[in-house]
Structures are given as C-alpha cells and as structure tokens.
C-alpha cells in the first residue's frame, strides 16, 4: 500500500517534470516572452534590462534550475502579466472550472447511465439503436462546434439563455458559487451540456456494454427463469455490478473533463482556469503555463489515486501494486 502511494507520487512528479521541461524548452525555442509583451517605444537598453531582470539571458538549464529550486520552496512564481503569484491566480479561477466540470459530469451520468442501461437491456430495439447513434455523435463531433451551435440556437436566435460568462455568485457556507443563483444556472447550463456530451457518449457505451454482459450471465438467466421481474433483476443485481466500473470511469473522466474544459471555457467565455491557460499561452506567460500544468497534473493524479483506492475497497479482487 505504502509502496503504491510512493509509486503514484513518483509518477506524478515525472509527469510534472516532463511537462515543465516541454514548456521551458518550447518557450525558449519560440523566443523571448519580453519581445511579445514589451512596449514598442522601449529602448534597447530597457529591453535588455528586462531580459536580465526576468532571467531570460541565462542559459536554459539555469533558468530551469532556478524554477525548480523555487518550486521546492513552495514558490511557483508570479505571472509576468499580472504580477501576482500564479497559485493565487489559478486558485481564484479554479472554482468556476470545478463548477462547470461537476455540473457537466453530473449531466453526463444522469442521462448517460439510464440511457446506456436501456440500450443494453433491449439492445435490438429502435430506441437502443437511436441511443447508440447519438452516443457516436456525442464523442465524435468536436465540442467547440456544438458549443457554437448551442450559442446560435439558444442565445442568438431564441434568446433564452445568455451566450457566455459566469452568472451571479452566491454564498453557501464558506463557498462562493454561482450554482445557488438562478442567474448562475442560466449561465452554466449551456456550457455544462456542451462539455458533458463527450462523457455522455462514453457513459452510454460503458453502461450498455456492462449491461449486455450482465444480462448474459448465468445468474441473470437463472433469476429470469425463476420468474423474478426484470425490474428487480436490473436494479437489484445488475445495477450493483456495473456501478463499480462506472465509479472508476466517473472519477477518471472528472480529471480529463477538467482538461477539456479549456475548449468549452473558450467558446462560452467562462472565467475558469482553462481560459486562463489559453490566454497565457497567447501571451507567452511562462510561469502561468507551467503552474497550470503542474496543478492540473497533480489534481489529475490525485483523483486517479482516490478512484483507485475506492475501487480497491469496492472490489476485493483488486490489489494495489506499486507504480503502474
């Protein structure tokens, strides 16, 4: 168990290391962030001072070691654009993203699981075929285009929903969230649906596969032969069986949804971390790029870890091995 945790930690560190090296080498190859930001009227002297001040004159490995040294002191650096610590910049925008991700994974599960169960229960019916066709659409049509269609339909033509942005924020306990105001929901619903479609397609297919498999087991055949009503079989037995892999997928997808939020946040102008990373990429704000990746990777690995632990609890056949 301990070895497993250490293995996971090492894995996380490796991912963080690789990503940060890519960003450093990449930004170094593109050029100097100062040249992107600097005011045209600045003299050569001012420019060179700045390059020195931000350490861009140093060799790449030295820049990187300075960064790593600071990270070990808990300092991820400051945004070059905003001059505030990147951690507070990222954390100030994380709630908006988490809101969006939770609602969308919720939608995906609430619609995807029942639809998949139905499709697996009567796999040859017309509705099942329709559900499966929709699931193919769900994970093949690019998110951003669906987002645009939603905006065109519901915001521009019908005028029912706002076209973007986050709604009014309310207080619950010590949280600030837009999920407690009606304005907040009006804003979140369209981006959340948009973000959920891919996951929904996935959920439908997984549930259906699990359902088909479970329906074919001896246990179910036997129960049916005994005259147990289908309702009882499905909800009593099968549901419990397929819930284990679903929990896993739910957890894993939480992480990748976080990453995919980049696209939805851009389309809907949602003020989350995804929008932040796009903006910092377009401004070459290296500290923000690196820290965002570090934080998302850590979050991602942590979620995976929790899912693994829950999984091990649910299914005693699974043993946790170090590393993989």
């Amino acid at each position, binding site marked *: 168990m301990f070895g497993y945790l250490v293995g996971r930690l090492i894995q996380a560190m490796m991912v963080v290391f690789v990503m940060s090296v890519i960003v450093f080498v990449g930004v170094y190859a*593109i*050029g*100097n*962030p*100062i*040249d*992107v*930001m*600097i*005011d*045209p*009227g*600045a*003299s*050569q*002297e*001012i*420019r060179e*001072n*700045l390059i020195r001040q*931000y350490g861009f004159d140093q060799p790449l490995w030295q820049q990187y070691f300075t960064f790593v040294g600071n990270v070990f002191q808990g300092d991820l650096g400051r945004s*070059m*654009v*905003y*001059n*505030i610590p990147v951690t507070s*910049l990222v954390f*100030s925008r994380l709630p908006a993203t988490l809101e969006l991700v939770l609602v969308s994974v919720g939608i995906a599960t609430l619609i995807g699981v029942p639809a998949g169960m139905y499709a697996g229960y009567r796999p040859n019916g017309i509705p099942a075929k329709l559900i499966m066709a929709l699931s193919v659409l769900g994970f093949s049509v690019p998110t951003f285009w669906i987002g645009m269609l939603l*905006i065109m339909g519901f*915001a*521009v033509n019908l*005028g029912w929903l*706002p*076209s*973007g*942005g986050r709604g009014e924020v309310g207080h619950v306990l010590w949280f600030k969230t837009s999920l407690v105001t009606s304005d907040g929901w009006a804003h979140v619903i369209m981006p959340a649906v948009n973000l959920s479609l891919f996951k929904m397609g996935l959920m439908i297919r997984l549930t259906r596969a699990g359902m088909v498999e479970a329906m074919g087991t001896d246990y179910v055949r036997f129960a049916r032969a005994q005259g147990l009503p289908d309702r009882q079989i499905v909800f009593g037995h099968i549901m419990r069986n397929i819930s284990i892999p679903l929990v896993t997928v739910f957890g894993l997808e939480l992480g990748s949804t976080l990453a995919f939020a980049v696209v939805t946040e*851009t389309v*809907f*102008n949602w*003020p989350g971390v995804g*929008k*932040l990373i796009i*903006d910092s*990429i*377009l*401004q*070459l704000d290296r500290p923000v790029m690196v820290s965002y990746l570090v934080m998302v990777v850590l979050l991602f690995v942590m979620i995976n870890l929790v899912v693994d632990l829950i999984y091990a609890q649910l299914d005693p056949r699974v043993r946790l091995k170090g590393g993989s």
Partner: protein
Amino acid sequence: MAKNALCSGIALITLLAAAPAVMAQDLTIGLRAGPDSIDPHWSTLGSQAEALRHVFDTLVDADETLQLQPGLAVSWTPIDDTTWEFKLREGVTFHDGTPFTAEDVKFSIERIPAVTGPMPMTLYTKYVASVEVVDDYTLRITTNGMAPSLPNDFTRLFVVPSETGMEAGNEEFNSGEKAIGTGPYKFVSWQPKGDLVVERNDDYWGDAPAWETVTRREIPDDAARVAALKSGQVDMINYVPATDYLSMQADSSLDTFVSDSIYILNIAPSVKDEEPQPIKVNGQEIDGNPLQDVRVRKALDLAINRDVLVNVVLEGLGTPANQLMPEGFFGYSSDIPAPAHDIDQAKALLTEAGYPDGFEIDFTCTNNRVPGDAVVCEALAQMWSRLGLTVNAQALNGTVFFPAAQREEYTMTMSAWGTLTGEAAYTYGALVHTQDAEKGFGNFNRSGYSNPEFDRIFSEGSQTLDTDARRELYEQASEIAMEIVR
C-alpha cells in the same frame, strides 16, 4: 512611407456601441481588455492606462487627438535646455483626503523603476535625470540631454500619494488598500480578467463624474461581447467588430460612435542587402533584394486599393492612411498627397525595375492583434497578386510573430503601430530612425531602413525646445519618410 517600409496602410477606427442612456446611475461596460493590475506604474498596456485613468490622474492630460491639456499640472515651461518646470493644480485631494502636492509627483516618478514590469513604464521617465521640489505646487525636472517630448511622456505619468511607500506592490493596489488616486472615480474592486468596479468621487476637481458606479467587465471574445450588449447584460461595448456594425446601425435600440484610432497598419519590406526569406522568380532565388529598388516599393504601394480595404474589407471602419500617424498628431504633415491606386503604373514600374512577371514573396502579418489585421493581410496579398506577384501571406499569433520579427526573420511584415504619446518622436524614433542601440533609436526598425537625411532632420527636431519649430521639423521628417515612394 519611407524608402523603408510602409507603403502604409490604413488607419483603424475605434468603435463603440451603446444602448441609449437610461436614467439609471449605474453603468456596465463590456471591454475587449482590461487592466493587468491596479498599480498604475506596473505596465504601459493601453487597456491598463484606459482603465486606470478613471481612478488616477496623469500629470499632463491629453485630448481626443492626444494633444496636451492641463491635468494635475496646469502649466509647464522649459527653463533651460535640460530643465522643465511644472506648475501644479492647487486644492486637489486624493480619495483618502490627503492633499495633492509636488512630493507626490516626485514620489511617483521615482517609484516607477522599482515596480514596473515587462511592459515598463520607465519608457516615460527615461529622460528624467532628477526631480526637485521647489514648493508644494512647483516642480523642476532635470533631463538627460534635451527632452522636448517630456510633457508628452507625462501624459502617461499617473500620480499616487507619497504615503504609498516604496514597498507597496501589486497586491496592495489590487486589494484596494493602496488604490488611491485623485481621479473622478474611486476604486471599489477588481478581479484579474474580471470586473473592475469604481464609484463616483464627489470631491473630484474637474467636471462632476456622470455615474454613481461603473462596472468595467472584460469580455475578450468579440462575438460574446456583442451578444452581451444585445442581451442587455452590458450597456456599452468597445471594439465592435466591423461585421456587426451595420446591423447595429440599423438597430434603433443601440447607438454607435465611431472615431479614428491611433493605430495604423503599416507594411515593412526588408531593404537589407540580403532579404531574410528569399524572394524568387520561377522558383529561383534572385540575386540582390528587389525591395531595395524604390520602384518596386512604389509599385507595391500603387497596387493597394485603399478604398476597397476601407469600404469592403473593413466594412467602412477605417481611414486610408498616407503616413505613420493619424491626422492631428504632432508632426502629421498635411502636405503629403492622398495615396493613389494605379495598377497600370504599378505594373509599368515593376517592369522598369526588371520584374515584368512579378516575383514570389513571403508576407507575414499579425493575427487578431488589432481588429481586421488578418483580413487586411489577405486582401493585400490578393491585390499584389493582381500585379503578378505570388504572395505567401501568413497571419500569425503575436507569440510567434513578435519574437521572430525581433530576430528580423521576415522579408515583409504588416503589423499595427500606435502613436501612444500623440507625437512624432515616439513613432519615428523607434520605427524609422536608423537602428542605433547607443542612442536608443530604431528599436523597431527591423527592415534595415536607413536614411541619413531623415535621421538628421529628426534629430534636429528632437533637440529643438520651441514647439512650433519642432513641429515644423517633424512634419518635414514625415515628408522625407514618405515622399520617396510617393
């Protein structure tokens, strides 16, 4: 323009659209970009200055064409070649009640080098050698050499109270603790990329501010900003995309306001002996650089149909430009003729220069840096292809374009230039003057253009304190920069 570059392009237009004023006291504005910080000394970014001037005042004010007006200083005069004296406004108080004095100005100037970031404000204090407080309302500034444009630079000098303290940084300003100015509105709150909220300063020294509270909301996406206006989430937006302008004009629930922008799209052909990206004829790299031939540059200029650019490509939201600064700016010459479009003459010139069948050339532009840059880029390539050229046009993001342009990797570029200070020294010193790191000139002259005649007239202008004489010299410099091609 010049032997150098700049067949010159078009001036862009800033466009605002607003729902008609209601009787409310609250205003919400949707903006393309907001400040990066509430510290007015952090960055020279245009959207930063635009936002913070409501909270802080500048020492010298500027009108719509960026010409000088009294601000916190009521008058300024050169005492000798290297000393300026500023008389300050009396009876002004900061938002916290402390009176405004010369000490505050001195502190603000001296604070800048300590706190400024990658878009450095030191740009505007580079001529300052020392600051002397004569009395509470008189200030003397000694300059490094002659600095006739000092008052222009000070249109960007925001004044904070001397009580701010040198150690205060972005955090203290962003939280509001130190966000204390003399401006028409008081700071309430701000989130990076979010809302900047300000409220009326009842004790403002100038005209009474019109609104009780103003919320400046950042909506960078053009389509989203338009949608926010149409759905009533905001009362007013800036940077209206040209494509939405016509439908807005027709919409009786909206008002639109148009005025000239300070940005001019300019084309910079490399005139170095060896062009960075080879120019080819029939796939063969040619010897020498055709762009060094003034006839070739003139042909490129004549092939541009600015009417089409303005009326079709930008859907009416532009003005044909014939020099690097908009009309009314200090040094703008009204003697430069309007740009002509004559494809036959252009072809004749090209034939005369030895390229009857044109050539193949790379043309690199910025994308989405200013509204319309990418479409104008494409349109120019199209116009030059009518001349027989094969133009490989590319519109790239700033992150790719600027570092590569700085390394002078492009043969011909187009980007927007804004004369932020409203006078010629800023633009010509950086863009047209021969590259000279020692004197700090020509930092953005990446085309290799060098005209001793221009450099001489320009330098003479920058060493002339008399306003009218200087204006005369700068206008002459504008003509030299443009006439060779015209």
